[in-house]
């Protein structure tokens, strides 16, 4: 870890977990951004060699326990996001921010659909497609998250 300053990545993962259970006003709850997925995406775009799929899978398990859903649901979707972003990484990192947002919208939307489907299998079917709202909110927040994380990365020289 030492000279790579990898602790920042871990800290952002923990912050992501924390933010995904932070209390929010009821009406905003439907559109809770996918913080953890956003942070993971940023590190994939910035320092792909420092991101491990297995760690992401384990983070997904942690999310499952926190959310009280079947073990493996978030693990599956987070790994899916990580895989897609790792595959697209070389192209996406060249995009301007708003295009990155669009890519995120699609990728996160896909992940949310998988999540919806798994939830339906588990028996708690959410009533509407509002389940896609988090993907939209995340995409809208992406430029700010990206800028904030980049300034952090440059300050602490994560590589």
């Amino acid at each position, binding site marked *: 870890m030492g000279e790579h300053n990898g602790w920042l990545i871990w800290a952002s993962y923990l912050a992501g977990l924390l933010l995904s259970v932070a209390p929010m006003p009821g009406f905003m709850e439907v559109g809770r951004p996918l913080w953890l997925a956003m942070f993971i995406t940023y590190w994939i775009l910035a320092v792909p060699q420092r991101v491990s799929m297995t760690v992401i899978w384990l983070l997904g398990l942690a999310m499952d326990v*926190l959310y009280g859903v*079947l*073990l493996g649901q978030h693990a*599956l979707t987070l*790994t899916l996001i990580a895989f897609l972003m790792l595959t697209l990484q070389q192209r996406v990192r060249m995009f301007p921010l708003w295009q990155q947002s669009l890519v995120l919208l699609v990728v996160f939307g896909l992940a949310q659909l998988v999540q919806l489907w798994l939830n339906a299998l588990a028996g*708690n079917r959410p009533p509407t497609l509002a389940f896609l709202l988090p993907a939209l909110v995340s995409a809208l927040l992406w430029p700010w998250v990206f800028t904030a994380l980049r300034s952090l990365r440059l300050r602490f020289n994560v590589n």
Partner: protein
Amino acid sequence: MVRLLVLAVLAATLMVVDARFEVLKPVRSQLGLVLMPFYGLADLPVRLWDGINQQFSSRSELLAENEKLKAEALLMQRRLQKLATLTEQNVRLRELLNSAELVDEKVLVGELIGVDPNPFTHRILIDKGERDGVFLGQPVLDARGLMGQVVEVMPYTARVLLLTDTTHSIPVQVNRNGLRAIAVGTGNPERLELRHVADTADIKEGDLLVSSGMGQRFPAGYPVAVVNEVIHDSGQPFSIVRAVPTAALNRTRYMLLVFSDLRSPEQRASEAAQAQEAHDRELAEQAKSPAPSSAAGTAPGAASAPAPSAPSRPAPAGTGGAR
């Protein structure tokens, strides 16, 4: 790619195992032990803010609140006095009837530490878990009525499914006339719906629904909801009945976990009968023996049926937390 496949298959396997078998429950509970502090941590700013607010709330406000609480305590005490005599009377009458239904259940006070982040489910986390004796399916209530039941137990925390979750149903009866029905959650925190109520059934706005205890999960007689809408639609086979939960499901911070009697009614009745028999025999022997033994000289009411005289910890009522 290979790694994705391996991890995906692993996740799928975990899901199936978790859904079908009990093997992963302890693992999940231990993981919960590590991860649940996240909820506390995430809630910390809110708590700090509340604490600061309380520190700096003005003296006059505190005085006013004190006055109000004193008045409330007085009222409660008056009611309690009446309750004591009533409870005693009830115990005596029940003894006469040989039935040993619990008059007062044991309770434990839990505090809310988190709300489920998924907006489509109504579940909350409380700060009592396996170590405090919380068990799966345990009923949870607040000062005003039933809230729900425990669905997941971790060492120091537990997850509670609220009445209004779409996957939750509870057997109820109308307090006025004993009409039975099933109240189903709708996903709206202010609404329950009664299933399969006949169009001619005697139910109207303002009726109090209490738990009927039929499912043997919830104790009988706790308020659940108040009917606020009855719609008779001649095109529908049943009437539509909507009710508002009496418990403040999305506002309460403190709640009571009820430890009710887990014995079946038959078991309870037979045990009570045995106890009564033993008591009678004792009395008979006492009458036969010339010298009144000091040990058996206790008041007759205190010795018989086990359940009513079982010590019930006084409920530290959740009234303070209901604001």
